[in-house]
């Protein structure tokens, strides 16, 4: 793995480990959800695009969780972290584990996450931890394409037929309470921000609001009021859905312990 830089010396490794899990679990769980669509998308081009996005996200997972394992220093690989933790040890946003719903809901979830992911990765490119900056650099290229695509589709479907508009509005209203978690600071975030490793989540809200607001307006969709926001994912308190995701995802590693594949 990458070597330690000057910056890490100053940073609590537990805080850094948690941070890296959040990044990697976000991409792992969303990648899992997208891959559930395989062969079931409403158009062949969408099958291809979803598989491609999932592929990018799984690739990013390998990098984030690989670094997490290195930072933890207990010899856990990215695979160990992906396949041998139970739900309460996962740190992904609740948004990313929401069920796929119809294709509109999947796209809306993707857009809301992509918008955050894009802004956050861009900020991480300036991380004082060069390992993080490097991963962010690679990932942000992929994610700016994800965002371009999901944003475009949200606009087209929002401003499409009455039915597509209604479905996209419904998806937005359902998913909205899961967006607040992206901007909630955890205790460890201040430490990381002070060390220049990662920006505090709350700081991205204004930019995200602008990007999302502008898109929704172009999509003729009504942005929901702020309202009550769900939380818990970053602390390992998830929804009932994550357990089922992991039961599938981890089956082989659990059923055949120690086997190599």
């Amino acid at each position, binding site marked *: 793995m990458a070597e330690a830089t000057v910056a890490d010396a100053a940073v609590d490794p537990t805080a850094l480990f948690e941070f890296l899990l959040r990044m990697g679990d976000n991409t792992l769980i969303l990648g899992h959800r997208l891959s559930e669509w395989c*062969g079931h998308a409403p158009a*062949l081009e969408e099958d291809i695009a979803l*598989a491609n996005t999932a*592929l990018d996200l799984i690739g990013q997972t390998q990098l984030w*969780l690989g670094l997490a394992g290195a930072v933890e220093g207990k010899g856990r690989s990215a695979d160990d972290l992906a396949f041998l933790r139970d739900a309460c040890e996962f740190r992904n946003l609740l948004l990313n584990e929401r069920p796929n719903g119809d294709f509109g809901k999947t796209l809306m979830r993707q857009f809301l996450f992509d918008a955050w992911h894009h802004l956050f990765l861009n900020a991480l490119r300036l991380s004082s931890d060069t390992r993080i900056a490097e991963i962010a650099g690679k990932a942000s290229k992929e994610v700016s394409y994800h965002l371009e695509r999901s944003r475009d589709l949200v606009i087209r479907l929002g*401003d499409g037929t009455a039915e597509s508009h209604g479905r996209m509005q419904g998806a937005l209203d359902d998913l909205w309470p899961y967006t607040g978690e992206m901007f909630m600071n955890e205790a460890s975030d201040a430490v990381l921000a002070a060390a220049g490793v990662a920006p505090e989540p709350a700081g991205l809200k204004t930019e995200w609001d602008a990007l999302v607001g502008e898109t929704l307006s172009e999509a003729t969709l009504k942005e929901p009021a702020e309202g009550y926001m769900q939380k818990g994912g970053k602390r390992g308190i998830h929804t009932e859905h994550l357990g089922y995701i992991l039961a599938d995802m981890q089956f082989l590693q659990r059923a055949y312990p120690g086997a190599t*594949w």
Partner: protein
Amino acid sequence: DPQERSFQERIDQGQKIEPKEWMPEGYRKTLIRQISQHAHSEIVGQLPEGNWITRAPTLERKAILLAKVQDEAGHGLYLYCAAETLGISRDEMYEQLHSGKAKYSSIFNYPTLTWADIGAIGWLVDGAAIMNQVPLQRCSYGPYSRAMIRICKEESFHQRQGFDILMKMVKGTPAQKAMVQDALNRWWWPSLMMFGPSDDASVHSAQSMAWKIKQNSNDELRQKFVDQTVPQAEYLGLTIPDPKLEWNEEKGGYDFGEPDWNEFFEVLAGNGPCNAERLGARRKAWADGAWFRDGLTAYAEKQAARRAGNEAAAE
């Protein structure tokens, strides 16, 4: 018919036929049937492999499988485009798939029951597909030939990846090795059936051969496949589930048993283990996605109208 004669001469000379050129109706129809069936197979083929993406055992294997399935959807796309050059639309082809009029490769009506099946599909199913497809790179119809060149390159990559899955497993625990043998037991015969029944008697085949749409007999290709695959199975330490399999020094190839053609025709008739589910999944995807496609169309129309409005205003 002089037109037909000159057409056949061009083919005999190894020239490619291109979309806007004259061609016999039978040639067009045969190609549409074959290319669309091939395209449908790529699309339906996403389902058995997609079944294991969420359960792939490592992140690396998951990524490889995602990339593979994405390639297959891509192959579907090239092939639909190639067929469209013959004057049929993609929606018409879907309609034929969904109504059951058009077929897809019967192999995808078998279930993927373990992770070893993902390896076996790469090794055997892609292996058999390549055996069928390599000659099609020299097909007389230009767009099909070019699509096959691109596809064959990726397929042989997939085949190696499938073999690699199995290599890793046979070197693993006894349970993993047993899983691989079990996969071979289930996929061996259906793979042999992928070449179709013996075509000695088929007039259909003779015409396709003359048109250079088809270049080898089913039995030739099957023999070639067996000869290539048996040593690979031995390398993996596996037993081919055919008591009649035996090296024949004289012919320089293997003798082997007859597949259960009764099973083949049952699967073709819709009675395979997964026919209802595969076709059902595709129909459902299409029906559930209607609003999505309509939404995009409506948006495009609105945009066109807006542009037209702007232009009119600017005049």
